[in-house]
């Protein structure tokens, strides 16, 4: 039981379950099919974005350009279909390709120059966003094939949206990656201690580049999912992604210094944030409170995570080398 308690996702899961029960007692509308549908949509869209940031946090870095990549891919996806009449499949592939290239640029420059990923992705944030605005001139693309619109808004059965399939599959693969593949373990090793991992023969270049490519890829998928849902490609897709992309992994117990992330807990973090936002709406509280709330939650979550690390370290301090 002690082991379960230690797991990041367990406590979070409990909070979600009890919180939901509590809310639905006061506002039964919370578990109405419609509300659950909206909730799952919101979770679907943010899950992929959270994973995109999570993998970068795993290697001990930050990716400020997740939203910019998502936005760029979103308008490219729709633009290719509208302006050049390309098929959905081809547009999608190109969109994914753009995500990969953006991620590669981020990762390659970061690892080859030794400049912090924070600064590199701050610059690319503006570069990618700039390209986005330059191409669209701040105008959305409207003309989207019906299939895309359908996928974004239809339901499988009951309140479950079609859209949820992809994020769920992605979460599954991310779990496999971080827990059962050499690449994922090497990424966590790198995040834990760059020097030790290099001495063990892990190639820093490979790790950083792959991590950023995956991050870019996920951001691209996120952008295209939003297009499906919104049924158009607007240049401001991704503008609001930065804060939640950090909030979910951090609430899920991630340590920003790297080397510790939990896929399931991050997913729970997304669910928690979505529930809170929904609840504020249901209770007719001003939506601007969400911003404030997210901010506080990040602070508290980071603080708690650091405190837990501190306690672990102290317990081992007696044995460790000063």
């Amino acid at each position: 039981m002690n082991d379960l308690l230690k797991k990041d996702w367990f406590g979070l899961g409990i909070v979600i379950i009890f919180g939901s029960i509590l809310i639905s007692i006061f506002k039964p509308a919370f578990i109405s099919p419609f509300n659950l549908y909206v909730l799952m949509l919101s979770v679907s869209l943010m899950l992929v974005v959270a994973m995109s940031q999570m993998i970068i946090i795993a290697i001990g870095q930050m990716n400020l350009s997740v939203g910019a990549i998502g936005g760029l891919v979103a308008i490219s996806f729709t633009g290719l279909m509208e302006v050049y009449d390309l098929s959905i499949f081809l547009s999608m592939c190109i969109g994914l390709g753009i995500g990969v290239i953006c991620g590669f640029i981020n990762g390659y420059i970061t690892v080859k120059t030794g400049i912090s990923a924070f600064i590199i992705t701050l610059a690319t944030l503006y570069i990618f966003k700039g390209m986005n605005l330059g191409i669209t001139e701040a105008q959305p693309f409207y003309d989207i094939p019906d299939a895309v619109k359908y996928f974004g808004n239809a339901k499988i059965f009951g309140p479950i949206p079609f859209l949820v399939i992809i994020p769920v599959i992605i979460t599954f693969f991310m779990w496999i990656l971080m827990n059962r593949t050499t690449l994922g373990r090497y990424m966590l090793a790198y995040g834990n201690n760059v020097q030790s991992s290099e001495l063990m023969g892990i190639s820093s270049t490979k790790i950083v580049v792959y991590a950023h490519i995956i991050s870019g890829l996920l951001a691209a998928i996120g952008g295209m999912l939003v297009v499906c849902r919104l049924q158009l490609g607007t240049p401001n897709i991704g503008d609001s992604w930065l804060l939640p992309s950090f909030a979910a992994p951090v609430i899920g117990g991630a340590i920003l210094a790297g080397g510790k992330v939990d896929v399931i807990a991050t997913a729970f973090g997304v669910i928690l944030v979505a529930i809170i936002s929904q609840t504020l709406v249901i209770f007719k509280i001003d939506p601007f409170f969400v911003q404030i709330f997210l901010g506080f939650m990040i602070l508290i979550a980071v603080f708690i995570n650091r405190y837990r690390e501190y306690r672990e370290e102290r317990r081992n301090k007696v044995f460790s080398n000063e």
Partner: protein
Amino acid sequence: MSNHILELNNVTKNFPGVKALDDANFKLKKGSIHALLGENGAGKSTMIKIITGVYKQDSGDLIIDNNKKSFSSPNEANKSGISVVHQERNLIRRFSVGENLMLNNLPKNNFGLINYDQVSEQSKKWLDIMELDINPNTIVSELTVAKMQLCEIAKALSLESKILLLDEPTSSLSPQDTKNLFSLLKRLVKEQDVSIVFVSHKLEEVFEICDEVTVLRDGKNACVSENIKNLDRQKLVKLMIGRDEQIIKSKENQNENKENLLDLVNINTDLGHKEISLNLKKGEILGLYGLVGAGRTELIKCLLGLDRIISGKLVLNNEVIKIHSPKEALEKYKIGYISEDRKKEGLILMHDVLTNAGITVWSKLKKILSFLNNGIIYNKVDPYVKKLEVKTPSYKQLVSNLSGGNQQKISVAKWLAAGTDILFIDEPTVGIDIKTKAYLHELIINLSKNGTSIILITSDMPEMIGLADRIITMKDFKVVGETINNHNYDDMSASIMANIHE
């Protein structure tokens, strides 16, 4: 065909401004434990880095098992059968022991995914060979440092290393752990066909476990593959420093009728110190001896307010005091601290000499509206910088560009300028050249003659016995002995060691 598993022949390595290795040689016989010795700056670490693939030599040959090799990365050295166990631990702390051991070769199942059952099983094999009773599923951060180190050796074995390089392996180990380690090493050499390069500055250990010795001095060999039986401590030291070891002549003790200046009464700290009681008399040099991990620097940091003192009293001039920060220690009680780690804690490497020398006195020197310019600071610190004979082209020189000895002098100068009554000095001559070392010793003696009371932490036995008036021994965050120093090396070293090994 030689029976050497590793050879460095006529190896030279240059860096901008310095020749680290000059036609140096090293030959490791199969199945031997071979000591590599040398003072700081002798070229030891450069040689180690060439062996382990971090550097490539400029000229000369690296031969592994009769094959000439050239490494472009530590990875390649690994593949050629060389493993290193560094001074700092290099395991991934959040991973399990098993995963760390198998990290370079994680066993997979049919889908290409990691099979953790196999990880446990295969790693257990290596742990068993080492006779280590550790569950491979244990998370590394939960182990003691000694066990972590043994796991690193297990990993080296699992990589089928034939050459094991141990860099200062006992610096964080207790005497019992050291004993365990040594018996393990002897077994490995006999049973597992491993040859060991043993790097340490603890000469007693070299005599205990090594069969051959190579000494480096100023980038060249002072001796090559000398049989340990032909050497004693004196001869070895002479090889390392080029002349006889100097027992520092110090002043006669002036302990008679000195009053207590600073008293520690039953101090217990957050870091684990238990019932520390000691006193510092005015104008004396109180030595604090102990092995790494004894808790001496930690005690000083608690006294300066950086970590919490849970209970006990601190008495200065018969007044109970509480120190909350180094700032308060300096400004209110005129206590200073010359750090152990001058590069990280003693100096601001990216700033210049004037900034570093004056940092302690800015508060005192400021004029109206906080005005302070370089001239004012210069006037105050220059006498001290000159007195210490610091060699620097100008005050604008970045401290990072100075030699180790001059850097240390600056970190001392700033405290002289501050004019402290009590000075905590922590390992003042580590990595410093002989001449500066002697200079600093004389300085410390003069300071105490002129009324500064000093607590001196040093792991350098000759230095301790030369300088201190009394020597307090610490172990495991407790005080285990106190002796008055008669400056006789054999007597004092025996008595100190007895205190530690009780």
